[in-house]
């Protein structure tokens, strides 16, 4: 291959040099795109002549350097071409000529396109095939920033003359490294953030330009410097050493399509900028302009720990604007239910023998629900299903149970009942409990869904249609009569999926069950007939998680296709599609008020989406691994998230801030749950433990001064061990699901792996 293309490479290289000045700020990736597909020198040179007129002050040295380089490499032909194109006479260093020719051929176009250049270049990066067209037709233009900073253009120009020598990447990177190492301590941590994205983009450029060996050497030399939490991505990068691999590599696409977001204080940024300009280190400067979004803030530079707390996601931190939108995190008003409690309640009171104590309690509960939360969305912000009689009955049951609920506190920890799945042969993939804890559903790798009854009440099917017609519909116990006693059993198996079932969720009214599977479908099962009612198709790839809204009717699903979909049970097409994650959506949760949806992803971010508008209203970064568990606090104010890194992070939804970090687990956290009153957070993990955390204390410590709220700079309390209330080790049983019963008994579930 090398032998055949030897000549080609030569010409390419020479074109490299020629096109470099043309592509200015928009990155050599683009230039290369163009080159790749339009091998004819004519097109490239036409593109290459797009030299911005802005480069008024001509730099002789640049051209001389180019010429010298060409001569050194004995590329006489290209020397000729360059001379001819630049209008240079033999041995001349006439800057004016070059400038005029450049301006004459394409400068105008370049300026005109300055605004759309960004979009254009972005487009071209999204799809390699289309980039040929875009590169050829729309002349790439310098990005805005470069255009603003006039003096930079020269520097930029000269930098590209060096691009042909990949060995210089090392030098550049090293130079920056040395600079950042010598900078004042307070800036060093901030500026160090630049390393990782720079490293990645430089490496990709090298790979893209077919400098395979240089790229490898570069990777080996500097990959060790990167923060350990980028290890997963680095591993993917390390496998990528050829240009052909770049096509279709998702991680790579993520890098190219989205700007890596950094938050840097103005001081540090100025420092970096000055350094790069002094050194004329335009390679790096270009990458910074191209692929990085630097969110500059005024104020004190952040410390290393502050930065570490927030970084780790695939695309850097969230922009500050991203978390500015108002979120109505309050709870909806509970529907008023005429309380027929009294007669039944009297019995309960008689049992306990304290009839007087209970009444005021009930009143207080009633008044609480009547008060309107200022942060709550309006009742009709999204249309919610109306309550049926059975729902009301259930609510009454709930309230009755709630009065018997144990008040949890660090002194009164909940009891934990562990449901072990035996003989699951490593096949248990998802578990859910009904809210009243009467049913357990398990999703299995063998595509089945199984439902167990954990109460003495057995599971029964509704009779067949023929039998149903015989029933006296007027009788009082018609609901009882429609059930087929012959089918009573403790568990039922639901067949229908054709791949492992990864997500499972009961509807709040216990009539339906949702399951999402590797086969790309979400299925809705009836728990009356124990049959599949609907298969929701939309995701083409595995659906990792699904969940019913707390009010029923709606549900959310998310999967490998990086899109979360909001469905209504009676629509076979999604109502909303939430796109924005850069990798698989691994878990999905509804906010208690059903107006928002949180999704966790393999790109190590959590996004909060507005169901009404479909907008992303919050982006939380800080996890260092794919997120596998999410839980909203019962009051809707907070969100807890757990990831493969074994850490639980706590988020304040209203302010869009991280407010806590709970360290202790040693493996992936698969389940999180707040107790009914939100005093205790339970986390279950692959490390076979259930841990209980003092959620109240974690939220109390919250510092909500204006500065923190404005800048998003958090000081995490170091002592997450103080918040740990208990660790309960099971016998080689990973904890897959956690659930608090209405009386605050904690149920845990997992499969025993002998």
């Amino acid at each position, binding site marked *: *291959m090398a032998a055949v293309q030897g000549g080609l490479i030569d010409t390419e290289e020479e074109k490299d040099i020629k096109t470099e000045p043309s592509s200015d700020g928009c990155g050599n990736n683009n230039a290369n795109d163009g080159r790749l597909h339009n091998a004819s020198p004519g097109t490239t040179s036409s593109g290459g002549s797009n030299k911005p007129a802005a480069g008024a002050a001509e730099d002789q040295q640049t051209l001389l350097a180019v010429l010298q380089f060409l001569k050194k490499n004995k590329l006489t032909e290209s020397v000729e071409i360059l001379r001819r194109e630049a209008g240079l006479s033999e041995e001349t260093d006439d800057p004016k000529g070059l400038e005029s020719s450049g301006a004459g051929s394409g400068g105008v176009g370049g300026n005109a396109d300055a605004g759309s250049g960004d979009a254009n270049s972005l487009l071209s990066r999204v799809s390699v095939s289309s980039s040929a067209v875009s590169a050829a037709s729309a002349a790439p233009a310098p990005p805005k920033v470069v255009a603003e900073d006039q003096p930079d253009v020269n520097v930029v120009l000269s930098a590209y003359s060096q691009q042909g020598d990949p060995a210089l990447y090392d030098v550049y990177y090293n130079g920056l490294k040395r600079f950042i190492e010598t900078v004042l301590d307070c800036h060093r941590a901030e500026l160090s953030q630049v390393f990782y994205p720079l490293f990645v983009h430089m490496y990709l450029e090298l790979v893209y330009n077919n400098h395979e060996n240089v790229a*490898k050497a570069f*990777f*080996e030399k500097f*990959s*060790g410097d990167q923060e350990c939490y980028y290890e997963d991505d*680095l*591993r993917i990068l*390390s*496998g*990528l*050493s*050829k240009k052909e*691999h770049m096509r279709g*590599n998702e991680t790579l696409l993520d890098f190219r399509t989205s700007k890596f977001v950094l938050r840097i204080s103005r001081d540090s940024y100025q420092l970096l900028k000055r350094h790069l300009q002094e050194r004329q280190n335009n390679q790096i400067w270009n990458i910074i302009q191209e692929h990085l979004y630097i969110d500059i803030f005024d104020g004190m530079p952040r410390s290393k720990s502050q930065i570490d707390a927030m970084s780790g996601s695939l695309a850097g931190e969230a922009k500050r604007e991203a978390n500015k939108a108002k979120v109505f995190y309050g709870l909806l008003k509970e529907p008023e239910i005429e309380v027929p409690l009294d007669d039944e309640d009297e019995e309960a009171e008689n049992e306990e023998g304290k009839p007087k104590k209970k009444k005021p309690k009930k009143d207080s509960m009633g008044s609480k629900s009547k008060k309107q939360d200022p942060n709550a969305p309006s009742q009709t912000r999204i249309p919610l299903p109306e309550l049926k009689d059975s729902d009301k009955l259930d609510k009454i049951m709930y309230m009755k149970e709630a009065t018997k609920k144990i008040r949890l506190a660090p002194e*009164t*920890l*909940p*009891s934990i*009942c*562990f*449901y*072990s799945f*035996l*003989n*699951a*042969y*490593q*096949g*248990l*993939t998802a578990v859910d409990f009904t809210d009243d804890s009467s049913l*357990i559903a*398990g999703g*299995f*790798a063998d595509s089945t869904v199984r439902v*167990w009854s*954990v109460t003495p009440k057995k599971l029964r099917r509704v009779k067949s249609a023929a039998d149903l017609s015989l029933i006296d519909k007027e009788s009082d116990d018609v609901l009882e009569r429609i059930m087929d006693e012959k089918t009573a059993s403790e*568990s039922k198996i639901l067949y229908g999926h054709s*791949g*492992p079932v*990864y997500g499972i969720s009961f509807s709040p009214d216990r009539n339906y069950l949702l399951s999402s599977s*590797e086969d790309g479908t979400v299925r809705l099962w009836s728990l009356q007939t124990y049959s599949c009612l609907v298969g929701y198709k939309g995701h083409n790839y*595995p659906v990792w998680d699904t969940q019913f809204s707390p009010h029923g009717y709606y549900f959310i699903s998310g999967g*490998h296709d990086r899109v979360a979909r909001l469905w209504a049970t009676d629509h076979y097409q999604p109502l909303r599609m939430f796109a924005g994650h850069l990798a*698989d959506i*691994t878990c999905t949760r509804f906010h208690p008020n059903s107006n928002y949806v949180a999704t966790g992803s*393999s790109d190590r971010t959590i996004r909060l989406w507005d169901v009404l508008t479909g907008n992303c209203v919050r982006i939380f970064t800080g996890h260092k691994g794919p997120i596998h568990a999410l839980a909203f606090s019962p009051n809707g104010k907070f969100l807890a998230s757990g990831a*493969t890194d074994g850490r639980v992070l706590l988020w304040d939804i209203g302010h869009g801030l991280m407010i806590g970090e709970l360290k202790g687990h040693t493996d992936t956290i698969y389940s999180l749950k707040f107790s009914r009153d939100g005093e205790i957070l339970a986390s279950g993990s*692959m490390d076979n433990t*259930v841990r209980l955390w003092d959620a109240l204390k974690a939220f109390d410590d919250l510092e909500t001064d204006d500065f923190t709220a404005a800048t998003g700079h958090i000081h995490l309390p170091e002592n997450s061990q103080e918040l740990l*209330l*208990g*660790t*309960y*080790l*099971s*016998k080689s049983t990973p904890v*897959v699901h956690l659930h608090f019963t209405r009386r605050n008994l904690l149920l*845990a579930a997992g*499969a025993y792996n002998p």
Partner: protein
Amino acid sequence: MAEERRQKQCSVVLPTESMKAMAESVGVGQLQEESCAALSEEVSYRIKEIAQDALKFMHHGKRRKLTTSDIDNALKLKNVEPLYGFQSQEFIPFRFASGGGRELHFYEEKEVDLSDIINTPLPRVPLDVSLKAHWLSIDGVQPAIPENPPPAPKEQQKAESTEPLKVVKPGQEEEGTIQGKSQGATTADGKGKEKGLMRLKPRSTHELSVEQQLYYKEITEACVGSCEAKRAEALQSIATDPGLYQMLPRFSTFISEGVRVNVVQNNLALLIYLMRMVKALMDNPTLYLEKYLHELIPAVVTCIVSKQLCLRPDVDNHWALRDFAARLMAQSCKTFSTTTNNIQSRITKTFTKSWLDDKTQWTTRYGCIAGLSELGADVIKTLILPRLAVEGARIKAVMEGPVVSNIDKIGADHVQSLLLKHCASVIAKTRPLPDNVEQYRADYGYLGPMLCSHVVKARTQAALQAQQVNRTTLTITQPRPTLSVSQSGLSGSGGPRTPSIIKVPSSLTLMSPRPGTPSQPSPPATKYIVMATSAGAASTQQVITLSSSQSASPVTSTVPSATSTLQPLVKLESGGGPGLTGSRPLQKYIVVSLPSSASSSLESKSAMLPTSISSLEAGMKMDRSDSPGASTQSPH
């Protein structure tokens, strides 16, 4: 280091030879080197990609192991047809082969005969998924039930005992109360060590909760009480329950004190119960016993070599107890002996020393030999076989000389059969054919001829078993004889009046008649004890048939021990009863005293036993002189 690893990650590429091999396997010969290189890079990259996707499926499958189905699913993501046929096993073993400068890992695919598959019976249907609930925590405290992991893992117990000062508690659950207690315990332990010179047996003082005290009381009472069913349950609990480590010092003291007292009282039944407790403790996988060996080993050794273990040495079957204890000793040597504590060599020395002593009694002699021979064929070969002639002469002197006493004669008889039993199997393995009686007499003296017949028998039995092995029926046939013996042993205890006392020796005999096959592991035999004792339906008719059959075949290697145990058993019904019941009050006295003296056991006990203390000390002295092992084996 991370850098190094990443470098590796970066450069890992399948070797080009693999490409060639694969190309050849699909019929493409002569692949060019360059295309191989290009292919291998491409393939390596794709494989990495697929592996990364497969990891995703593993994470979502909530597993730690990557399975073949994960790979299949990852291939499906890429729109590639998955590989079929790799679903069956959880673990696909790769075979490694090297030679000719090539190293290969390959997946061994055997050619399977279809008719074989068709003809083999269907495998059992795997068990269906089921749901089981247990309490992981009750009001914030994790209950110590078998469903939960042991409260203190063995490593932690070990760390506590070996390095009491820097006990770290990784992920300790019961932070608050219990941790404090265990820390207190370790400090107490440390103090005990300082006072080691004054106090021979340092012990830690744990504070037990009320429940634990109750449990302790129940268990110890059941273990030495009269109800055999209860005892079986109690022993089962000791052998399996995970949360016992806090009570371990108590149990250990209970056993050592119990042995001390009951050796003096010559209470055979209680000694047997205590030994069974030792056995149960050793069977419990969650206990770190090393810390208490200094109490347990002397007790066990006492039961092996003590001069007198029962009131009527001529009729009671104390031999079975010696056998059982010897086996316990061997087991603890096997599990606990290390280069630092040298248990095995010290024990061996102790046994040999007292055996070599001419003045040793036959009972002790028997114990020493039993203890030695249980340690394995090597010990028998090096220590016992050379002394067979000497021992034979001594036996001859008793058997054929002037009648000294009946007891001596019985003792000599037992020693003889013990030697025959253990040596025969070893000789059968090591000594070349032919088995010449004269040669044997020359080599082994008085015991020679008998040994010869035993060896012949052992050889034929081995041959028979080899045949059985060929027929693959060995696994079924072997337990049967032992089972039948167990039934017979039980039936011997048929007398309803003193069932508990007699049942125990019967179960002990169960273990001793291992039918001439040293290769048979002991665990199965121990299992039968439980079965036999709990099965406990007795009928006297069986006794008759069995004893008659035994008298018919007096010289088999398996039966003699059975007969010797059975006969005293039957007699014991009449004679052993009153003696044992007489000793019971004292035995109970100990049981009650221990739990009540929970906080400081030794002092309170010595205070509470003022009357018996003189006799106790006397007994101790006797005990010590009788069993040197007991006195020397308290090093910790």
